[in-house]
């Protein structure tokens, strides 16, 4: 039932967005351009050096593609929850609580923006090009790990988005704080997380588990060693981490809603 309403709302929003057609396509183009620019950055860095933390160019591009698709999916379907802070500030969040559908469903449907789809286009192309170019002995496990990683990556990004957006119930102007974990996370996961200093690396492994988005699984696929102190089974732990992230995100979001007090006079 929620899924049907969600579908209707998303379809309506898509039709609405197509009304400003020029702007829609320009925005779509700019979204594609953002992820294209991220790729160009990797390519430019590799004109100066032949490896980054012992990862080759195609290996880093592989990370870029996995992270980009996961982030693109989360950006398209979940990132709208970030707008909750605007609704709280404007006092329009109350309407979400009055309707017979979860606030998360409504937010992600009502603010659905098909123009964001541009974000995942470039990484998909890169993945298609880079997979055959990777110097990897493909085993059934490695093959299966690619789609699993993409899905789990999207789920982890989505959970981070919901968790970070839950802050809006406590701090009114929290959207940018959330950005440092979401957009910052997208930026970070394109590179081997090994490059970070030890405390930041631990933070992104155990506190905000972005290292599981693509770094740990990709390290197994391309035969790169994990940092010391990281057990090798972490490469296969993404589904468990994704599930746990969802549970935590859901709990924090609900806690936030319970804490919510409407603004107004």
């Amino acid at each position, binding site marked *: 039932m929620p899924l049907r309403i969600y579908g209707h709302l998303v379809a309506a929003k898509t039709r609405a967005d197509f009304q*400003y057609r*020029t*702007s*829609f*396509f*320009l*925005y*779509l*183009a*700019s*979204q594609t*351009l*953002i992820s294209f*620019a*991220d790729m*160009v*950055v990797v390519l*430019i*860095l590799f*004109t*100066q*050096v*032949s*490896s*980054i*933390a012992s990862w080759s160019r195609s290996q880093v591009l592989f990370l870029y593609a996995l992270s980009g698709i996961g982030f693109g999916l989360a950006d398209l379907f979940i990132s709208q929850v970030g707008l909750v802070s605007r609704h709280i500030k404007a006092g329009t969040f109350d309407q979400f609580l009055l309707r017979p559908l979860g606030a998360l469903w409504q937010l992600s449907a009502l603010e659905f923006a098909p*123009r964001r789809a541009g974000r995942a286009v470039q990484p998909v192309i890169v993945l298609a090009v880079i997979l055959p170019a990777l110097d990897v002995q493909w085993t059934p496990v490695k093959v299966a790990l690619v789609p699993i990683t993409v899905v789990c990556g999207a789920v982890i990004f989505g959970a981070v988005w919901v968790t970070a957006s839950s802050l809006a119930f406590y*701090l*009114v*102007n*929290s*959207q*940018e*704080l959330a*950005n*440092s974990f979401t957009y*910052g996370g997208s*930026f*970070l996961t394109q*590179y*081997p997380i090994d*490059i*970070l*200093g030890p405390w*930041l690396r631990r933070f992104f492994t155990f506190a905000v588990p972005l290292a599981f988005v693509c770094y740990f699984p990709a390290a197994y696929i391309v035969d790169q060693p994990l940092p010391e102190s990281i057990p090798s089974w972490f490469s296969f732990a993404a589904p468990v981490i994704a599930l746990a992230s969802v549970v935590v995100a859901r709990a924090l979001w609900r806690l936030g809603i319970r804490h919510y007090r409407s603004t107004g006079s």
Partner: protein
Amino acid sequence: MRPYWEVARRTFHKMTTYRGATFAGAFTNTVFGLLSAYILLAVYAQRPSINGYDAVDAVTFTFVVQGLLMVVSVFGDTEIADRIKSGDVVIDLYRPIDYQGYWLAERYGKAAFYAIFRGIPPLIVGALVFDLRFPTSVSTWLAFLLSTALAVAVGFGWGFLLQLTAFWILDVRGPNQLGWVIAQFLAGMFIPLFLFPAWLMAIARALPFASILQLPAETFLGKHEGADLVGVLAIQAVWAIVLIGAGRLVLARAVRRVVVQGG
């Protein structure tokens, strides 16, 4: 000049009320600075120096740029465009003060606020975590301030042009974002221009966007002195005049399209 000064001053004061947002933003700039710095250090682990810039230069560059992002407004505002869309632009045009001048004054008010509250925190954290290279002479600090002030004007000129598209297509988010992504990339926000291959660096340096981030950050690092410094500041000034002048021309055309309803 008095009304423009007042606009800038009041904008500054208005900004000081958004404390939470300022803190959150400074935090984000700092996180991005840290992440970029680690990526650049991984690159520099392979080579001691690239195009005359060493690892300390590169890391310093990153934090200076993160601090400048809001000052020069590289994410673009839509305030002008929103007022065009809503029709409030008519009130703005009626004011007994120049339309573009009003928004430029407003931009400088914001820039001054961001310079203090968004510019300094990332630099402090950066200096605590990494080895940074600060200007050693008063003249370098002054040159950096001047270069930043010019960068604000160049950024304003570009953003003003992008927002004027609202006179023609109403929903300005598309052109605004497209225009700013290109500017960000060629200004050195994603990675410094000195890491670009020679041909791409030549293109980027020939365009106005380098004046928005790359040139002030280079000035901070003390890469320009004497006549060279004067040249850099002159380039920025020329781009500011060209873009702001173009904005005036487009505005003059756009205003002819405005039809005021009511009476």
